[in-house]
């Protein structure tokens, strides 16, 4: 091998080695990299018990009840549902049908939240388009 090929091999080995290390590292930490648990994860016992964790899902339709700054609502992934108790300021995007992530712990089957964050999706559209889509959906 010429010197140049030698150096090329070294760099290639470096790239392969690092990718492998990265892959194995990510595989090992996979669970810890989940930012939140879905209601189904929690039902299946994947969420930490007796400790605070994050629950993520959709705010169920017609479930939001406000009483001053106290608010209760249901978080669902359309397979399982948990009701959430929270008192505090909700983000602008919070509404029924919106994706949210909430931090807290499960006490007697009710999720006592200390923080509620709204999750935005990747869709961007003007209000007229959103209205048109909504109308089309209702017609079906």
């Amino acid at each position: 091998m010429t010197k140049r090929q030698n150096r090329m091999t070294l760099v290639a080995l470096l790239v392969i080695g690092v990718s492998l290390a990265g892959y194995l590292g990510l595989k090992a930490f996979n669970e810890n990299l989940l930012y939140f648990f879905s209601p189904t994860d929690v039902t299946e016992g994947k969420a930490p018990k007796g400790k605070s964790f994050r629950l993520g899902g959709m705010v169920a339709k017609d479930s939001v009840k406000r009483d001053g700054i106290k608010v209760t609502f249901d978080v669902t992934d359309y397979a399982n549902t948990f009701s959430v108790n929270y008192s505090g300021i909700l983000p602008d995007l919070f509404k029924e049908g919106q994706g949210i992530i909430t931090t807290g712990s499960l006490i007697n089957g009710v999720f006592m939240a200390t923080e509620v964050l709204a999750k935005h999706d990747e869709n961007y559209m003007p209000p007229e388009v959103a209205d048109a889509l909504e109308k089309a959906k209702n017609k079906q």
Partner: protein
Amino acid sequence: MWKWIQAFASPKNFYQISQQITPWFLYPFIVLALVGLYWGLIVAPIDYQQGESYRIMFIHVPAAWMSMFIYLVLAISGGIGLILQIKLAYVVAKVSAPIGAAFTFLALVTGAVWGKPMWGTWWVWDARLTSELILLFLYLAYMSLNNAFDNPKTASKASSVLAIVGLVNLPIIHYSVKWWNTLHQGASVSVNKVAIQDTNMLIALLLMSMAFKFLYGALMLMRARDEILVTEQNSSWVKKIIMKYKQ
């Protein structure tokens, strides 16, 4: 062919060519940025959920794209420097690093400013935000490593190895929103799907991302010329240029 590449990549040749082509990056940047900002701030309609606040994406998304693109340039020119021992490749990598770091910082800051009203928080440690922060640290580590050696050759080699090692972070950033649950939303624009349902929004985004590409090209060329004058200060052609300005 090697001779041809080496001749083209000689510092002297690059110095002269880059002087001529810099305007071809600088002026398109100015035009694209002005039209893009007008399109993004005035022509594009409001978003059905976020109102006016979504317009920050016309800076945030191109800046985030550039932060990854420039890192790729860093690693590839580092690799070319190591394998083919072309000085110019090291110069390109060295001068690109601070530009990339600046775009990464811009992406993080604009994201935080948007996150506060929309998500309800400036910052969370989810996979996307954390991996982008690691990208900023990689740029900073690259820059400090490059300045930590007295011998410029050793500095270039060591920092190029670091740049190539850090390459593993790029797919993590890109796929973080797919592989794991994150607060950050998935990609709005990707190869097989565009989730931006308005042509004017899309045009503004594409104009701005083109503008940032040209801005990087212009900044890189200008900084590379300065860097070449420093590294080649003992060669006769640089001395000639300096003499010309002294008179």
